[in-house]
């Protein structure tokens, strides 16, 4: 398949060859409808009206502690240092980091939880800004994953499989819906730099890889600094005039080649060089925050002035959303608090709390929240028991995938709502579990995609983001 990266210029040839070879019908959406949705006849579309035109996923890598941020457990307060009851633990597998631990001792959160907003959702004092958007979010306290270590868990959340090789969620959406903006990629990834050097797990380009989907659905990394997209800037000494002349002559020669060879691929290439040229203007414009008024920094915080911070990337995310980028993926690292949780968690909370809340407010003020789905969460939560030595003021928590919390906002998701519940130790789910595949099915559903029908044939079978699982979580839809 040869076709343009940013689909709207896709040729009729692509369409024909897809039809002829039955390679799947996705991405037709972008051929037929630049700014809206694909024709109703497309097989993968959900029957319901799409609510989200785009997604902003604020991924918190490392596994933020649900017990210290989102899921208050007052019953644990009096049990410091006691064994987790066997009835709760139930012989669950633990990671190798605690496998030679004889006892698993309860460590209650030392943070206060406040009822926030009119809805009264209880949120940790570590998240004062998130408290201010309580009435906008749907907090899910019953997400669960099958993986207990970072690499498989983050891969599972982002690709639907614990193992490498599958396309990422953003690539699936790009493949399914294409771009709303022909000057920008449909799937943009921004990795944030924490404000303090905190130990972070490695990220993996597979998290934004197109896997077996065509390579053009790969997420494009936007970086902080003067060259947001790699190799965007001309070599020094080559100004716009020289580049324009160059492209004009290049285009003339390529058109000569087209006359000679008749290969439509040559026309596509000419178009892609022009697209690259347009990106040389559109991307720096997009990344240039100088037109943002002072009020924006009051909203997102001063950190947003520093390129590459989570706050700056949240502001960028809004700009990308305004310009119709389909899937905007942020990563914040550093939530892996096996020890020293009380020194490290506040740093991460400070880095992410305010900008996340600001983004939701900003989108709302601009009327974008109605069709933008914002998601906040990591690959798993953390254990109610301590890892290693446990002292009242000094402990850490191990990985915990049996239940953890995430929030969503906008695009037809219930507001000021709590979904699901965990037991009194935040260890097991007691109500309305949301499996990672359910979450993925729901995200696609909001985009108007039936997760069972967005498929791609590879190695003789139809693959999909949710494998053979996943149910849309209807209860969180407004």
């Amino acid at each position, binding site marked *: *398949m*040869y076709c343009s*990266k940013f689909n709207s210029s896709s040729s009729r*040839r692509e369409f024909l*060859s897809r039809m002829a*070879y039955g390679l799947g019908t996705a991405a037709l959406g972008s051929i037929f409808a630049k700014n809206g949705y694909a024709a109703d006849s497309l097989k993968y579309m959900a029957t319901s009206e799409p609510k989200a035109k785009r997604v902003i996923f604020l991924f918190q890598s490392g596994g933020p502690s649900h017990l210290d941020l989102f899921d208050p457990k007052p019953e644990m307060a009096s049990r410091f240092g006691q064994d987790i009851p066997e009835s709760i633990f139930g012989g669950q597998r633990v*990671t*190798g*980091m605690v496998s*030679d631990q004889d006892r698993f001792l309860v460590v209650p959160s030392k943070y206060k939880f406040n009822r926030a907003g009119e809805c009264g959702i209880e949120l940790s004092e570590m998240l004062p800004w998130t408290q201010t958007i309580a009435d906008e979010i749907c907090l899910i306290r019953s997400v669960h994953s099958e993986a*207990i270590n970072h*690499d498989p868990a*983050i891969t599972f959340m982002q690709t639907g499989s614990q193992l*490498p090789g599958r396309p990422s969620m953003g690539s699936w959406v790009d493949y399914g819906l294409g771009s709303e903006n022909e000057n920008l990629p449909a799937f943009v990834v921004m990795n*944030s*730099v924490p404000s303090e050097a905190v130990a*972070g*797990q*490695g*990220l*993996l*380009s*597979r998290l934004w890889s197109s896997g077996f989907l*065509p*390579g053009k659905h790969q997420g494009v990394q936007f970086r902080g600094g003067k060259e947001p*997209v*790699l*190799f*965007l*800037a*001309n*070599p*020094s*000494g080559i100004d716009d005039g*020289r580049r324009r*002349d*160059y492209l004009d*002559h*290049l285009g003339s*020669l*390529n058109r000569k080649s*087209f006359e*000679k060879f*008749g*290969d439509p*691929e*040559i026309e596509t*290439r*000419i178009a*892609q060089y022009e*697209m*690259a040229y347009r*990106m040389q203007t559109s991307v720096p414009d997009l990344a240039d925050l100088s037109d943002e008024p002072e009020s924006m920094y009051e909203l997102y915080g001063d950190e947003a002035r520093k390129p590459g911070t989570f706050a700056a990337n949240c502001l960028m995310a809004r700009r990308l959303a305004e310009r119709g980028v389909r899937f905007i993926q942020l990563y914040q*690292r550093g939530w892996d608090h096996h020890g020293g949780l009380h020194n490290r968690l506040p740093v991460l909370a400070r880095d992410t709390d305010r900008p996340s809340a600001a983004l939701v407010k900003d989108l709302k003020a601009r009327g974008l929240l109605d069709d933008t789905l914002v998601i906040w969460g990591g690959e798993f939560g953390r254990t109610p028991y301590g890892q290693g030595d446990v002292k009242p003021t000094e402990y850490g928590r191990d*990985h915990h995938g049996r239940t953890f919390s995430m929030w969503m906002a906008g695009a037809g998701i219930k507001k000021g709502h709590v979904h699901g519940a965990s037991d009194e130790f935040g260890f097991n789910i007691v109500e309305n579990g949301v499996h990672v595949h359910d979450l993925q099915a729901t995200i696609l559903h909001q985009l108007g995609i039936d997760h*069972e029908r967005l*498929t791609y044939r590879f*190695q*003789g*079978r139809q693959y999909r983001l949710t494998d053979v699982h996943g149910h849309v979580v209807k209860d969180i839809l407004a």
Partner: protein
Amino acid sequence: MGEQATLSFNHDVRPILSENCFQCHGPDAATREADLRLDIQEEAFKDRDGSIAIVPGNLEESLLVWMIESDDAEDLMPPPDSNKSLSDEEKQILSRWIEEGATYEKHWAFTRPEKSEPAVDSPSPIDGFIKARLQEDGLELSPAADPKTWLRRAALDLTGIPPTVDDYRRFESAVREHGESAFEIEVDRLLASSRYGERMAVDWMDAARYADTHGFNNDSERSMWRWRDWVIEAFNRNLPYDQFIIEQLAGDLLPNPTLDQLIATGFNRNHVISSEGGIIEEEYRVEYVADRVRTVGMVWMGLTTECARCHDHKFDDFSQEDYYRLYGFFNSMVELGEDGRVANAYPTIPSPTLKQQRRMIELEARFAAAAHEKAAVLNRADTAESSGLSLADYGQQVAAATPQPVWKVSSSTQFTEAAYGSPDESGPFIPGVVGYALRSGPSNGAGSIAKGNISVDKETHAFTLAFWIRPDESVASEVPLFSNAQFEREPSSTRYGVGWDIRLSQGEIELSVAQRYPGYSMISRTRNAAIDESEWRHIAIRFKGKADDPYDHTPSSNFSIFVDGEERRLETRYDGLLLPPEVKAFESYLGSDLRIQGALYTGLLDEIQQFDRSLSDDQVLALFRSEALPYLMAKQTASDLSESERQWLVAIVLDQKADSEWLAARDAYREVRGELLVLDRSIPTTMISQDREQVRETFVLNRGHYASPGKKVEPGVPEDLIAPWPENAPLNRLGLAEWLTSDANPLTARVVVNRFWQHLFGVGLVKTSEDFGVQSEFPSHPELLDWLAVDFRESGWDVKRLLKGIVLSRTYRQQSRVFPELLAMDPENRLLARGPRFRLPAETIRDQALALSGKLVEQIGGPSVWPYQPEGIFEPIVVYANYPGTDWLQSEGDDLYRRSLYTYWKRTVPYPSLATFDAPEREVCSVQRSRTNTPLQALVTMNDPTFVEASLAMAQSLLDIETVPFDQRVREAYLTATGRWPEASETNILLAAYNDALDSFQKDPSAIESFLKSGGFERENEEPSPELAASALLMSLILNLDETLTKG
């Protein structure tokens, strides 16, 4: 496409049944509905309670027809909720097939290929088959391409490097003179070039998931370039492809495998390996085994085996049990689930390059001669000569040069009870080298050193440990000497075996230091130390301190073992220790350890001492001699010196005398030993395959889960489906390789020739080159595929011969011009009515630019290199830890310009400019790249410093040739980039582009200056000239032409 007389089950019918019906009525018993199978004739024809799914020739009676045509959603097949539906055409095909008698056929790929005659006669059967198919649609081959076009096409396909102007001229005149034979000579020349192996290796590196890092979130460095170089070499020497399979899959199981055959088995180890702390070992070990099954299935069987990992295959008659039988071949490999945090994962071997092997032979010969000469001098010398000298003075002198230890156990009476346990019952008063010795007994060892006593250099963590041993005659073959390794912890713990462990093992000293045993450890042992019973020997262990280079690839090179004051050559088994190691944290046992099993040391120990620094070689020697000398003198007086003791003493005496003959012999010996130690440490290791002595039992894993074993199975292959097991083949990987390469195997040769076809034509004869199962695409030219497969096998799996045949075919030599009618009819050029035309692979695009610029440095093999990469690519992604491979260490000089296959490949952050052109991450096996056309690619070839610098260098050499008119030079540049001369109108555009740029630069001198500084380009002439800048921009333009980026 043409109307057939009767329908073919394989071509027309099975794809419909497979796609729409087999999910519920196919091989998987677990999800089978209504107990009906449609993939087997007898089952489909069976009468079940009066209804029959398929009655041959009878549409009325066939329930299937009724159900696919049903208007009632309840009855309709496939059911609406399955997301599957049949088109009218598909329904008609099924009906027509039943009318025609519903003949079943075995799936084509599982039947043995046979050679048939093409329906159209042609000198090359390849062309015969292609023409025959074209004729069915009233088409014919396009005219032959210009010889230059063919030359470029063949050169890029076979060597990855474009021809030069001279190559084109030479070839054109050869064609004029010799006609057809010139082509053959040219192909032979290309295939004989060592560039051929480099080009062919790239695709195989994708398939074999080669990388320079382990993958997963730590993604630290591994060293597998010896395997990569083996692949290059295998293609270059045209290793028969069956051997290529056998050596990679099972080289270790061949009789007396060579080093090369062992290196080849790295194929089974190229998969990703996790070092994430806290993973469950078995879970990942199982994944590695599954990865091997997947890879072998994809690259040589063309089967999507992993579909049967959790349940029976939905489409192919390949059950879950079949899967685990195949899995059984790989399940007994020695390996760890968590490994590879700082270096290669166990097991590894030292894998000296050919050059190193030659040097080793030379140095070892010199070493033997020097040792012989040294011994001869010592033998000739008489100990009596010492009588005139004051050895006592010498002793004092040596003692003064010896640093003070942090602690020392010099006899049982000197150490406190608290720190050192009570001596063995046989009493403390046994004479030692100095004073009394310690006795280590079979039940208690010789006590311990409390953890508080041990201290190391505060900054570097360096330290030295020294002691004397004299093993009893009855000493066991494997005993601990000094150990604080924490073997009492749970083996699943992340700290299992942490600490130090020094052992006497079959007469050698073995040192093992671990953070976690054995994954993150180093284990080295002396060679030829020959420590005999009942002799005193001096042992020193030295850690020279935290490595200077935090990305030290061989942690073991920071450790030394001395015996009798002389540093020994070491053999290193594991080398994955993160430096610096811990030593202070634990109580250390003498003569015993914390293992549950194993004999303790029986024998004497003396002068056990530890220094909080790294002693120099001279200091270790001085320490040894200072303690030995009084002892030797006493024994000399008693005429009781053993032969080795006599030599120690004579050496001291001759040193003291500064005997010139001795000094020459001694220094020669030391020098060559030093060179050998350096060479030993420079030898790369590589990961290899090795089977456990005891076969690991294999169980079906329910739902593929590592902790849910079901039925036990024996290793085996799907014999009924594919081919019988070869007689007398061993039931291991070697047997599997023999089965794959057996004449009876219908898959391997087909799958392999199809991939080579894909390499040349962009698409395989079977488009789904990774899947030949029933869900695969039916071959575009089945008879051609079979002919090629049989011919390949009959030729002795001769790859060069296969490629030569294809490249010389008329089919390959066609023009690639695309006509609109043909495009509409055959958009992917599957019928091959024109030559192949598609974008070059990532590596070739970069290599071509380097070659055209003259910057390319051609040097085959070696460690991977780090060409230009913009800053800040790694930082936002890689783990926050100092593991090797977490920084981009940009190369300097030649290594910036090596061929792209040598570029350091980090799986989680693949080299951006190659990844942009669809190079896969190589986390998993991949046999087909996507070929996209994106604006990000335009940005790479216009702006990446590698390409900018290439343009500048091209411009420089363009301006240097002053004997040829400028426009002719531009035309030549165009020729080398595209394989054709520009037409007059094109030359005009090129010159206009140059003149526009020249004008513009002349008006803006500062732009010239800054442009010419781009990349690492070093200008040869002093003045920044607008001509150079404008030429460079023109050369960049040429590098960005569609025809340059495309094989046409």
